[in-house]
């Protein structure tokens, strides 16, 4: 493991010794989420969402496998089989509501996890790989959620499938054959439903695999922390167990309380009434909107209303521009570690970045969500265009420039100092600043305190 002072697993009984020799799973767990994983002592509640996301994935897999025992992926009976689950299967209503709302809660958790990463720049070296794998997980989640929403074969399922597969039709030349191939026909049909069911069942296990890589990559440099200063000494860390297992246990309790409120008292507020109408290929609902967690990207898709034309020649049609922008809006995250070159990680020590984050990116995402759920008419169109423009400017233009010109606030010497103050510091003898409470002022572009140096 990463730190010299990490505790070593010591099997005590003869049995655990035997297991440790043959298949050291207890050792693996001990080092991954046990006392053998030293974690910064100053993590705030925003660091709870990784464990919660893992819990959500398990929740979805367990309820999903069970629902698959009752569900029929045949367009003739799919809708009725969902009603069968709701009415006849023992606890079927609870399992289905838990699965449907579980998807929403999974996205709530994952968005908080992502925006934690964005604010504290968790994507920066040495943690680029963790971030990249995280974006892969997010893309897989979107695909899984989309295909899952098609399975009840309601009106929104059908028209969502039609519209989203229609996006591929925008690709020049191969678009239309590709769309027909994806759907297995000219409109969503039995073949579509069966393949979506199959993939919806498969992808969560792929996600679980990438999650293992994500956690593996995390354990190489260790967790980041709210100051962004790397761990330097043993007093900067506490063992994951019991300190963070206890904290995550409490966080899980709070999460479950909120989840319960939705599953048992508001099970349909996050869904759409039209999906309780069986799919009808001859009639489109008045307002088709995706599930709430796709709304920002849906708004970006719809923001491009004009063809890119010069002198009357259409170079790129608006539909293709929208599709490129929508996929680009997520792909841009892959380049974040190299777009933002500020030597300081934490947004708390980056005054300019912080302003753009709270007064730029966050309102922009909220506005995009609202626009995505509104009908395609003014003023929503123009607002979504402004927000989309800001979205791309933020990541591609503002972040690189801000990281160049910003003067960061002084960083604490160490995590211990940040937590305990510099009076009773165990480790501020060297380089911790000339006076207690005062710390090294980093120069822009320089390496202020080794915060970008990889952990040993």
């Amino acid at each position, binding site marked *: 493991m990463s730190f010299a002072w990490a505790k070593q697993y010591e099997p005590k009984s003869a049995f655990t010794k035997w297991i440790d020799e043959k298949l050291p799973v207890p050792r693996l767990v001990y080092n991954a989420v046990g006392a053998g994983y030293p974690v910064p002592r100053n993590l705030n509640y925003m660091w709870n969402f990784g464990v919660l996301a893992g819990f959500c994935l398990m929740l979805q897999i367990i309820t999903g496998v069970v629902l698959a025992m009752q569900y029929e992926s045949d367009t003739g009976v799919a809708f009725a089989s969902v009603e069968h689950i709701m009415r006849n299967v023992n606890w079927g209503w609870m399992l289905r509501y838990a699965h449907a709302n579980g998807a929403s809660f999974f996205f709530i958790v994952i968005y908080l996890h992502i925006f934690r990463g964005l604010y504290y720049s968790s994507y920066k070296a040495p943690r680029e790989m963790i971030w990249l794998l995280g974006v892969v997980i997010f893309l897989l989640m979107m695909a899984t959620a989309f295909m899952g929403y098609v399975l009840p074969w309601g009106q929104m399922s059908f028209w969502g499938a039609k519209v989203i597969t229609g996006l591929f039709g925008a690709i020049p030349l191969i678009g239309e054959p590709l769309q027909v191939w994806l759907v297995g026909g000219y409109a969503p049909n039995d073949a579509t439903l069966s393949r979506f069911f199959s993939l919806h069942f498969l992808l969560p296990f792929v996600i679980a695999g990438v999650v293992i890589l994500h956690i593996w990559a995390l354990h190489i440099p260790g967790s980041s922390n709210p100051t962004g200063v790397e761990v330097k000494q043993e007093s900067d860390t506490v063992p994951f167990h019991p300190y963070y297992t*206890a904290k995550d246990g409490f966080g899980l309790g709070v999460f479950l309380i909120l989840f319960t409120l939705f599953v048992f008292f508001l099970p349909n507020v996050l869904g759409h009434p039209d999906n309780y109408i069986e799919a009808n290929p001859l009639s489109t609902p008045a307002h088709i909107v995706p599930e709430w967690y796709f709304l920002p990207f849906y708004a970006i898709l719809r923001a491009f209303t004009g063809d890119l034309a010069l002198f009357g020649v259409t170079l790129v049609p608006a539909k293709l521009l929208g599709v490129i922008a929508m996929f680009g809006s997520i792909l841009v995250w892959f380049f974040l570690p190299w777009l933002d070159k500020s030597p300081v990680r934490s947004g708390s020590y980056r005054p300019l970045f912080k302003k753009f984050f709270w007064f730029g990116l966050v309102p922009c995402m909220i506005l995009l969500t609202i626009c995505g759920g509104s009908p395609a008419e003014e003023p929503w169109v123009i607002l979504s265009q402004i927000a989309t423009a800001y979205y791309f400017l933020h990541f591609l233009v503002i972040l690189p420039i801000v990281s160049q010109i910003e003067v960061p606030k002084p960083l604490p010497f160490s995590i211990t100092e940040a937590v305990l103050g510099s009076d009773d510091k165990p480790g501020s003898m060297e380089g911790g600043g000339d006076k207690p409470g005062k710390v090294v002022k980093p120069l822009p572009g320089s390496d202020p305190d080794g915060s970008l140096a990889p952990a040993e």
Partner: protein
Amino acid sequence: MANSGADMGGTATADPNMLDEEGVRRRDWIHIAALSAGGVAAVGAVYPLVSQMAPSADVLAASTTDVDLSTLEPGMAIKETFRSQPLFVRRLTPEEIAEADAVDVSTLRDPETLADRTKEGKKEFLVTLGVCTHLGCVPLGAASGEEKGEFGGYFCPCHGSHYDTAGRTRKGPAPTNLVVPEYQFTTDTTIRVG
């Protein structure tokens, strides 16, 4: 599920002076309580996952099957469906009745008389489930021309169980007689099973 975080052993934070006689820190009870609550929650969450596999309400709903016997000739049998299982209704000939009555009940593996297995005054109508009591195959003998076994009733080809004209197990591995479901005569010639 809900317990992953709640578990923790004793920690360095408790005051060693608070050790009681057993050596357990008094404040550890809160960890044990939290962990136990998590365990209860996990068991509670498993319950619906397990119980969803039990028969659903539509399967459990008692359904009935009406059978019209007016066209059933002596010596013939009809196959019907009752709660997704085969149902045999057989009209016995006088010889078959005599054959069944001639058996000494005490020698049977599952002692029952033909009268026990039919309705009063309707002794010639034998209503049974067409499910072998050994491992659930459908016995032969209901359709005309099928093998009826050594005792002239039903024969299960899966493992060679022989039933007599009253549907009683006589030879082979079947432990009990063919099951007679609940039914009653709604008219002289129709029955309602279930």
